[in-house]
């Protein structure tokens, strides 16, 4: 399996990264990509920019642990995760998760699993800049619920 995990300040090209996953291979039948993009609104209010803080070292380790878990749960042939940090404005890429497998179900499920865990377990924090000031984004209960469903699946 090809694994790429990168934390970086600079932008990435989702198309280029996805193409790398399948380059020179004919056994991959499915690639699922998720791109997280900075948006200009949240809860009915405008957002001017977002600054992503992270815990260097732990963020890489935590993502690698979840990639290893995804690998043990689905027959994956490749995973690419790129997470940016620093300041981003609406329209900018924040995160890319790409999964490759022989069949679509594994690729879809693994991408969803990895995103749910990135949201709740990877040490990143968003500071939102609005026209009237700035605030740390509060964690959403819906994100915890989304991550918890994979725990239930594991037990059953």
């Amino acid at each position, binding site marked *: 399996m090809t694994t790429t995990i990168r934390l970086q300040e600079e932008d990435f090209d989702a198309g280029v990264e996805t193409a790398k996953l399948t380059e020179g291979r004919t056994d991959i039948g499915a690639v699922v990509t998720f791109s997280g993009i900075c948006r200009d609104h949240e809860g009915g209010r405008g957002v001017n920019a977002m600054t*992503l803080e992270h*815990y260097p070292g732990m963020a890489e380790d935590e993502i690698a642990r979840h990639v290893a878990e995804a690998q043990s749960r689905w027959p994956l042939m490749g995973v690419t995760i790129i997470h940016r940090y620093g300041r981003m404005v609406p329209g900018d890429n924040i*995160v890319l998760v790409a999964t490759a497998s022989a069949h679509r179900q594994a690729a879809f499920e693994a991408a969803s699993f990895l995103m749910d865990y*990135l*949201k709740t377990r990877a*040490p*990143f*924090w*968003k500071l939102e800049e609005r026209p009237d000031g700035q605030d740390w984004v509060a*964690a959403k209960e819906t994100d915890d619920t989304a991550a918890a469903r994979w725990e239930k699946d594991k037990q059953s």
Partner: protein
Amino acid sequence: MSVKLRYFAWVRERVGKAEEDVTPPADVSTVADLMTWLAGRDEGYAHAFENRKVIRAAIDRQHVPPATAIAGAREIAFFPPMTGG
């Protein structure tokens, strides 16, 4: 025992620093004890650790629950619930 503490996001802002080395007293044995001890240091720490239930912790870059013993830890981090992705 000296240990390196690291703070992130609003915990960092309230404490007023990103990291420091501390030597907690011997009766501080768990992550929860450490938060209580830190909260008593000054107003900034008290504000950072006023709602200890929401603060997450990591020892040597792995998530840990508050009841975890800190003996042998090299680096302990405190931060709010994560909002990446």
